[in-house]
């Protein structure tokens, strides 16, 4: 099926970039990957969106994910063993039928600068910001990285009965002038942002993100969505497009497209996906999602030269 520019997702972000004050709380919403997030801040907290999120601003009285935000005195690390430790910025605990996410800097013995509790489907949550680090004077984006992205990957894959909504992948998303939706997967340094710059300025081309793409199935078809979590090229689009081709990027002395067997493609995509690895149901959902994707769409290794000929190789489907 050919894709045209008109088949981009039809919703448009509103101009709601500032928090709306409603009595004793303020509210701010955004939408990524067709999932809406609503923040309600109390205790006089002032909110703002990160600049990269402004194109994703939305207005809604009731969002898919709702988070209440407040200030708290010194936050504590739970006494029990964590379910999962990222080895860096965040740690996950089981608590009250849901999950607690703690966020710490890498200073030994320091208390969390924020903590959030979410229900088992990551639909409702309460976020507390430590008064040691936050105040009511300076406007903040309470969901700052990595919380917004960690929340997204959990929400996408945590539907009841192993029924998730989609997955987030480490990829560049490009829609070419003929409507082809190209997903270029790669770890850091693989050439996603470099490739994005090569595509920039090509007439009729739209880039959804140069670092993070959300994949979802809509009416039986696979769609890719831009995200605010951009890479070096700084490209973050709130639009979506039908996905038609999948590539794993590999820098090489010449351009070459090599077909990948389905099993290898699934492994390569999984290695470049952001899935809650502590959760068996989420992993199972992600693996099934990826397996189906590999059965429906052409998956290739794209060995490429970081120059304009790489764009032509994709547009003409040849190596």
């Amino acid at each position, binding site marked *: 099926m050919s894709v045209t520019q008109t088949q981009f997702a039809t919703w448009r972000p509103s101009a709601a970039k500032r928090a709306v004050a409603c009595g004793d709380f303020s509210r701010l919403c955004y939408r990524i990957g067709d999932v809406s997030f609503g923040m309600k801040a109390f205790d006089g907290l002032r909110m703002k969106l990160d600049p990269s999120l402004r194109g994703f601003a939305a207005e809604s009285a009731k969002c898919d994910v709702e988070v209440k935000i407040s200030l708290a005195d010194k936050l504590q690390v739970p006494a029990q063993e964590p379910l999962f430790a990222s080895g860096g910025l965040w740690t996950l605990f089981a608590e009250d039928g849901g999950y607690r996410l703690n966020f710490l800097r890498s200073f030994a013995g320091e208390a969390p600068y924020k903590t959030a509790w979410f229900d088992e489907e990551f639909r409702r949550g309460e976020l507390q910001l430590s008064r040691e*680090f936050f105040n009511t004077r300076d406007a903040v984006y309470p969901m700052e990285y990595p919380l917004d992205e960690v929340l997204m990957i959990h929400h996408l894959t945590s539907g009841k009965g192993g029924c998730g909504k989609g997955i987030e992948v480490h990829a560049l998303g490009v829609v070419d002038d003929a409507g082809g939706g190209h997903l270029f997967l790669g770890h850091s340094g693989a050439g996603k942002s470099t490739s994005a710059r090569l595509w920039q300025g090509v007439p009729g081309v739209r880039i959804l993100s140069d670092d993070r793409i959300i994949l979802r199935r809509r009416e039986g078809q696979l769609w890719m969505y831009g995200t605010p979590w951009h890479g070096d090229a700084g490209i973050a689009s709130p639009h979506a497009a039908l996905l038609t081709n999948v590539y794993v990027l590999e820098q090489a002395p010449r351009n070459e497209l090599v077909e990948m067997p389905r099993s290898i493609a699934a492994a390569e995509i999984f290695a470049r996906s952001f899935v809650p690895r502590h959760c068996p149901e989420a992993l199972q959902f992600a693996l099934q999602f990826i397996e189906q994707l590999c059965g429906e769409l052409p998956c290739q290794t794209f060995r490429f030269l970081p120059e304009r000929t790489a764009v032509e190789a994709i547009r003409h489907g040849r190596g």
Partner: protein
Amino acid sequence: MDWEDKDEVRLADEREAEAYEAPKVLRVSLRPAEAVLGHCKVTGSAGPVSASCRSATITCRSLGS
């Protein structure tokens, strides 16, 4: 059916079955710190750009992926 007939049936079944292919071990590159969103990648504008990593109050020392 005598023994000879049974052998022919067995050989015909084997011809129809797919040839056995031994499983292969495939090594796939995985970047654990990237995969779990464990680190910021903020030098200039690289990666998910976070206020926490640029803010004067919350200085992140967790540069990585």
